[in-house]
């Protein structure tokens, strides 16, 4: 409560109202989906709830109505995992390389940004077309992974730049002065100091790939990823199982993010621990 007795102006209430509406808009659908995923076996896709159960979660696993949902999930997870590792590794070294101006560094940088700007669907179409032209079969772990990297690498690189802005090159010089070889400097100094930032890069690689839809659409070949599978289901499935999938995938993303931040803060605390 305001103890100062100062009266709030009308603009405060207006802006506070706007903020609340925004929060509601952001989270209400997610919460509604979460609640509806626990719909009773006899319930439908809308409120009210008819009893509460985990029926639709088990229905996802047991029923054959949903196509290859499990396979799509594991494919998406594997794709996101590969994107995570490759994004972290490539962006780490690319970020280090961009600390110096090498011949063509400007062009390379703009090419990287370009792949961020190009519409995903168009890129997806182009990759599909190119593979066909070359007579190569589309495969989710080849053309699919490539399409995802065109999205995760630019983001990862930009984050890496931010991470590196707080990195002092004198640390590497100090290590060299102490007699460390190039490999020892990379392993004991550069990588270790940058590691928390690298987790952030990897995290972006994961989330961007895990729910990527447009770049997956025409590049995965015969088998689908989870976002495409879910998108297909929205037109055919009319049960709360759809919500159950939503709750599960959100929970997984959340777990990954919380895990990553916990990892970063554990490292931080270790460095500042008394």
């Amino acid at each position: 409560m305001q103890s100062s007795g100062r009266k709030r102006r009308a603009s405060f209430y207006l802006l506070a109202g706007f903020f609340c509406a925004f929060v509601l808009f952001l989270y209400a659908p997610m919460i509604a989906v979460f609640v509806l995923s626990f719909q009773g076996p006899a319930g439908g896709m809308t409120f009210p709830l008819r009893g509460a159960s985990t029926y639709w979660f088990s229905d996802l696993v047991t029923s054959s109505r949903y196509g290859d949902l499990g396979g799509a999930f594991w494919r998406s997870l594997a794709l996101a995992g590969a994107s995570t590792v490759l994004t972290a590794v490539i962006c780490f070294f690319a970020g280090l390389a961009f600390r110096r101006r090498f011949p063509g560094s400007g062009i390379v940088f703009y090419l990287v940004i370009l792949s961020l700007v190009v519409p995903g669907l168009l890129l997806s179409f182009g990759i599909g077309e190119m593979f066909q032209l070359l007579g190569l079969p589309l495969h989710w772990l080849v053309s699919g992974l490539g399409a995802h990297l065109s999205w995760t690498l630019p983001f990862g690189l930009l984050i890496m730049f931010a991470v590196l802005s707080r990195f002092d090159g004198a640390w590497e010089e100090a290590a060299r002065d102490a007699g460390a070889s190039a490999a020892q400097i990379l392993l004991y100094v550069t990588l270790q100091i940058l590691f928390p930032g690298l987790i952030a890069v990897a995290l972006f690689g994961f989330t961007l790939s895990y729910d990527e839809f447009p770049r997956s659409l025409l590049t995965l070949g015969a088998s689908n990823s989870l976002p495409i599978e879910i998108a297909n289901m929205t037109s055919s499935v009319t049960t709360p199982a759809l919500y159950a999938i939503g709750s599960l995938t959100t929970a997984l993303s959340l777990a990954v993010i919380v895990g990553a931040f916990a990892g970063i803060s554990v490292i931080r605390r270790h460095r500042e621990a008394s």
Partner: protein
Amino acid sequence: MSAKGEIRVENVTKEFGGVTAVKNVDLMIETGTYCCMLGPSGCGKTTLLRMIAGHETPSSGRILLGGKDVTTTPTGKRGTALMFQNYALFPHLSVADNVAFSLKVAGVGAADRRERAMAMLKRVQLAHLSDRVPAQLSGGQQQRVALARALVTNPQVLLLDEPLSALDEFLRLRMRTELKRLQSELGITFVHVTHTQPEAIALADQVVIMDHGTVEQAAHPREIYDRPHSPYVARFMGGQNVLFGTVEARRNDAIVVVDPAGNRFTVPVLSGFNNRAQVALAVRRDAIRIRDDAGDADNAIRGEVSSVEYQGTFVKVALRTAQKDEFLVYQNESDYFAQPRAAGEFVTAVWDARRNVLLAGANNSSGDPIGE
């Protein structure tokens, strides 16, 4: 065979993309010397230090350590250790691991390197903080860790890049004393880069004054203070007035220099000088007395008092004269208060002919990197 800590710089030049940072420098630093490299920012002192450390390679010329050519020897393999300006302590390692880092990369076992790191930390009185990380230390403590990390490999040469500039005034004076003590205990060569002249005078056995990539003068601080080589050195070291004039006559072992206002200075010289030659000379500000009038005496200059500053142990009286530089007199406190001067008064400054020092070098820059 040269002693291990001897540094010899032979005709070294360093260019960075068309800009010459260090130009044809020749320098000899004897083993066990506390050497201070002094100069304004951008004078090339840090580049020279980094070349000795092996973090830069000379564009031409040679660098020898202990008689061995190390011009292209990688850093970390030449018996030097560099203490970085902002210490560059590894933020992710404990104090003990920071100090032990060079031992770790050299393959020394964990127990052995811990023991040696702790011994070095004891030496800088930080053993009780060995498990902290750098972020938890004060500036002075970080500085000691950096020192311990540099010394743990038993280098023959310790290179210090502005080691005291990040500390407050009180700590700076304390660490200054400690550096000097450490150097005489270890008996190794210290090369210390600084831009503050009192630091150099207090610490150094040898001061190397640099400007625009060249060495202006390298000598004991007392020698530099008493016999500055050029107007630049005299101005940069401070405590001196620089005067200009034309040689008018020769008198025994001295020349008579007359300035545009007609003041005559008799300057002791060893060799002859052509009449009409333009020369510069320096006079120490604490060797000058102030009179109401000195008549027609030599080694005197008349001027108007422009400001008076009380400095505790002495009084700084500034005179406006016909000379370009402001003319300062450091007057003994009791002398000044026996006859105080006020701004606007006209007085004559007089000094002994023996205090005139001829400035042979031509470098006339102000020592101020901007105001040239």
